[in-house]
């Protein structure tokens, strides 16, 4: 039990390293010739990375049989939301500087932005219902609601794909990881259903 608490603390601090690095680059004046673009990509990259890492927790639990790993899932998901929030704020404040008309137009007219915004709204919904209280209160609905993370992973990757002029290596890595992880879940669900059927017939 104590070991888990320590591991969680270590994970928490490790997950903050990218944010600390960003602050460090800013202090060093090392944010490239286009700092706003750099911060946008940096925070967006980490939001998707943490989303994929979060998706990996349950498959890892199934494969390793190490159940306590599930205790990391919420924290990692919240870190995805944390970096997604920085990403959103970069767009909102630094990129468009409260130009609401232009932002509204982009959200409505450009699928690339629409997908990004939809992803953020989904992550927001998951984050605010991530408390013990919500889990208790929502019961079965909570499980259903939190399946939104699969949708968010797909929209986030789509958003990332549209953000670049070509397919970049980084995208390929995340896409392969996401396909494997979502594939594993689909396979696992099918498998358990097939196994479950005879027992329900009794």
């Amino acid at each position: 039990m104590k070991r888990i608490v320590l591991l969680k603390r270590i994970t928490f601090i490790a997950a903050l390293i990218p944010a600390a690095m960003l602050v460090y680059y800013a202090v060093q004046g090392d944010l490239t010739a286009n700092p706003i673009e750099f911060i946008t990509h940096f925070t967006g990259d980490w939001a998707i990375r943490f989303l994929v890492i979060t998706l990996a927790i349950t498959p890892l639990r199934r494969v390793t049989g190490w159940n306590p790993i599930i205790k990391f899932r919420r924290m990692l998901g919240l870190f995805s939301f944390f970096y997604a929030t920085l990403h959103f704020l970069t767009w909102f404040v630094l990129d468009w500087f409260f130009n609401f008309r232009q932002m509204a137009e982009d959200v409505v007219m450009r699928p690339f932005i629409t997908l990004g915004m939809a992803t953020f709204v989904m992550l927001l919904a998951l984050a605010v219902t991530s408390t013990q209280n919500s889990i208790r209160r929502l019961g079965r609905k909570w499980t259903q609601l939190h399946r939104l993370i699969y949708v968010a992973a797909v929209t986030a990757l789509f958003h990332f794909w549209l953000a670049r002029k070509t397919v970049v290596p980084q995208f390929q890595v995340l896409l392969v990881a996401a396909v494997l992880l979502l594939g594993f879940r689909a396979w696992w669900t099918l498998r358990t259903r097939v196994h479950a059927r005879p027992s329900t017939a009794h």
Partner: protein
Amino acid sequence: MLIRKAPDLRFSDITPKSLYLRRREFLKAAGIAVGAAAAGVASPFATDAAAQQKQGTGHGGKLANVKKSPLSTTGEKLTSWDDITSYNNFYEFGPYKEDPKENAGTLKPRPWTIQIDGFVEKKGTFGFEEFTHPYPLEERVYRMRCVEAWSMVIPWVGIPLKDIIAAYKPTSQAKYVEFVTAFNPAQMPGQRTRMLPWPYVEGLRMDEAMNPLAILAVGLYEEELPNQDGAPIRLVTPWKYGFKGIKSISKIRFVDYQPKNTWQVMTPNEYGFYANVNPNVDHPRWSQATERRIGTFFRQKTLPFNGYADQVASLYSGMDPKKLY
């Protein structure tokens, strides 16, 4: 406002190289850690830190006898040498903006040849010196507007394209000029991937190519062009989006058809042949109405033909501006 001062507070000049390099190392390490599961996606752009400061990507030879041109854009603050040479789209050296500076050291801009072909009297392959030597070098300060909605102001050094074209005597059948980047995967690691169809191709209509604003650049800030900016010779057409400015040119063909430029082949619904800067025709994924000048915080309005309408708008009279993207 504090944040507005950010661009002036850049310490990169005094940051020791070893410290600066850590960012790339960190980003690579992070990318690799996350992507470890997807082994096999090996990056051809992986380079070790020791090889970062390669020849050809820093300051080059000084160019002598550069005369100032009256066609230069005035009243604009020049973008710094460091920004112009560290923030590049040059997919032959990788898809990220910092890749070209890091990877372009492998390009050997000398000896270099340029092949002239097609509907032209003086066909042949010419050495870089023979190709450029007969002309006086001019400094042309131009705005550079990237299709990605950022911009710079660059003091190019080059030769008017019309003077070069005239010397090779294209025939009356020549309607367009097609430019081709060198194809050399050994020197250009990006060409070992299938990110774009290689080699990079661009083109101009004959009258566009003969417009006095079009130049072939061989330098900037009165120095030889660094590799990441398209050494040894590249096209500059300031009224068009930056991707028209094809780099490291090795072939120039005079043709009777509209060349299929690379980005048009790649994504025809987003990039066309003309690619004239137009704030009223949006890119499908973002607005082109504004741009961010590198080194400043607030976006500024994009001008039709990037502010060069007086010199070039007549080329397109009678054409539908919506077709000119």
